[in-house]
């Protein structure tokens, strides 16, 4: 028997989806428009704005910066986050409760405040190179995702499995690598993806920490917009969107399968 859906509910769902997807459709349309200004519906179809995005060296440079920043920042954050999550799961009883809260603080503090604080303390205070400051900022920004997602994975983990490995002659550090890590793999991958996407799309922290010569793609996009209001903006946005969706889809595929097997 088919469940009847109330027409009002259906209408509400359609409106919600339109509201969520509409802007994206408009951006995709605009990026294909054969005009020198942003136009929707597109007038004529062209890929030249995508070409243009790659031709402008500032975009090429910042794409690379954003990508390496997202990868390295996330890696750095996992390097801190995994041991932190491990310690909090393993020694839950011995460790003070507030530790968990400390690691999610970067999410609770408004990003703009975090960005400003980092600028004041790290960039100007310590006078570190711009890229390094950005790296620290992004690592900090994504740390809560790493700790939380990996932590959720570890909460399911039976630590007597680790003890079994140790009792069989495996030193602690090796047991972590060969027994604990493979069993929280899903969480680590999920954390990586969430963190990667967050870092890739971040504006509010980067805007304070970028400087002469070093910028990220979203920041460059803003800068470009101030001078040229052409469909290149739309094409870069579509590229960002595309990378995000591609990564998500990839993980949904792989993770979805592992979760099914469990």
């Amino acid at each position: 028997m088919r469940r009847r859906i109330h027409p009002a509910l259906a209408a509400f769902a359609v409106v919600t989806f339109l509201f969520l997807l509409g802007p994206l459709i408009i951006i995709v349309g605009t990026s294909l428009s054969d005009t020198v200004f942003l136009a929707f519906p597109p007038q004529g179809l062209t890929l030249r704005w995508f070409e243009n995005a790659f031709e402008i060296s500032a975009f090429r440079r910042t794409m690379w910066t954003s990508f390496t920043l997202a990868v390295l920042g996330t890696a750095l954050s996992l390097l801190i986050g995994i041991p932190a999550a491990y310690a909090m799961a393993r020694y839950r009883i011995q460790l003070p409760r507030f530790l968990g809260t400390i690691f999610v603080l970067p999410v609770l503090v408004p990003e703009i405040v975090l960005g400003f604080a980092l600028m004041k303390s790290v960039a100007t205070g310590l006078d570190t190179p711009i890229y390094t400051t950005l790296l620290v900022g992004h690592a900090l920004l994504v740390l809560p995702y790493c700790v939380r997602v990996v932590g959720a994975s570890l909460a399911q983990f039976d630590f007597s499995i680790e003890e079994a490995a140790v009792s069989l002659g495996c030193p602690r550090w090796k047991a972590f690598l060969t027994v604990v890590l493979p069993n929280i793999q899903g969480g680590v991958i999920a954390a990586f993806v969430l963190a990667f996407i967050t870092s890739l799309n971040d504006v509010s922290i980067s805007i304070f920490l970028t400087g002469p010569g070093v910028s990220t793609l979203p920041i460059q996009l803003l800068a470009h917009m101030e001078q040229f209001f052409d469909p290149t903006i739309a094409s870069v946005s579509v590229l960002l969107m595309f990378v995000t969706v591609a990564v998500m889809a990839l993980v949904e595929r792989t993770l979805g399968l592992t979760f099914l097997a469990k």
Partner: protein
Amino acid sequence: MTVSLTLDHVSASYGRTRVLEDLSLEVGAGELVSLLGASGCGKTTTLRLVAGFLTPDAGTIRLGERDLTRLPAHARDIGLVFQTYALFPHLTVLDNVAFGLKQRGLGRAARRAQAGEMIERVGLTGFADRYPANLSGGQRQRVALARALVIDPPLLMFDEPLSNLDAKLRVDMRVEIRRLQRANGTTALYVTHDQEEAFSISDRVAIMDAGRIMQLDAPEVLYSKPANAFVADFVGFETLIPMRAVAEAGDAVRVEMEGGATLDLPRAQWTVPGQEMIFAARPDGLVVAREGEGIPARLGLRTYLGRAYQYRCETAAGEVSANGPLSQPMEPGETAVLIPNPEQCCLLPASNA
């Protein structure tokens, strides 16, 4: 090579809570000793100390000549079987069993051969390529057993290994564990809260309470000659009555209870006239009769047990339970005597009451 395990005056605590108090224990070479007690009695703590997952505040732990006390857990060479099986979910049965051999640097071919052989010995032929998620509880515990046995450890330890299995499987598995432990001649320490399990599997059982061993003896001895009131209560001596020895004669001792009634009982080694003690009886240890030598009582509520009647009886020392034969039902309010049955009762020192 079989060696003995020795715990010498070991104390341990979690934070400020003392959980083990000056505990000494020796498990002889090839012997299986169980630690039995309610949760929180310190039995699992003892096992974790020996495994090296906890460090004692004081005392030493030795395995044969080796001092384990400060040795890291991975260097202790102890086979462990956990309540939750603790199999490696990402490895096949074969790789689970071969894990310990791999840590010992054995070549791939050799460890696959040895692990395969052990898998056969625990009756899992044909399961080598399965993952733990695709095994039943009993099969998982067999894998855990094989994994611990294959490294041929001088000591095997079991932490409530059967608690997650159903009743029938529990009996099968404990026979299996005992068989393999005997065949290998491995010294073993077994932690459980199940009295039947402990008594059926062990050479000796240590009954624990509040971080101390209350008695360590063969199951038969614990069952018939508990050393103190705690153990007596634990093994089913429901009735405990304070008494005093008044006279000795050969193998018998005459004891007197409150209200002046006296009983003649088999003498325990330590009884001396004038000494305070406790008379302990199972429900069948006091038999209700119309007349005879025993404790005078007024009968209360009668309940039918199938093999006997049970009466609540009012005595000078308070209310106790006693059984009476089905052939002579008696009524509430009647006066009777409770005659001790020496097989089902014993005398305990009063100091530990």
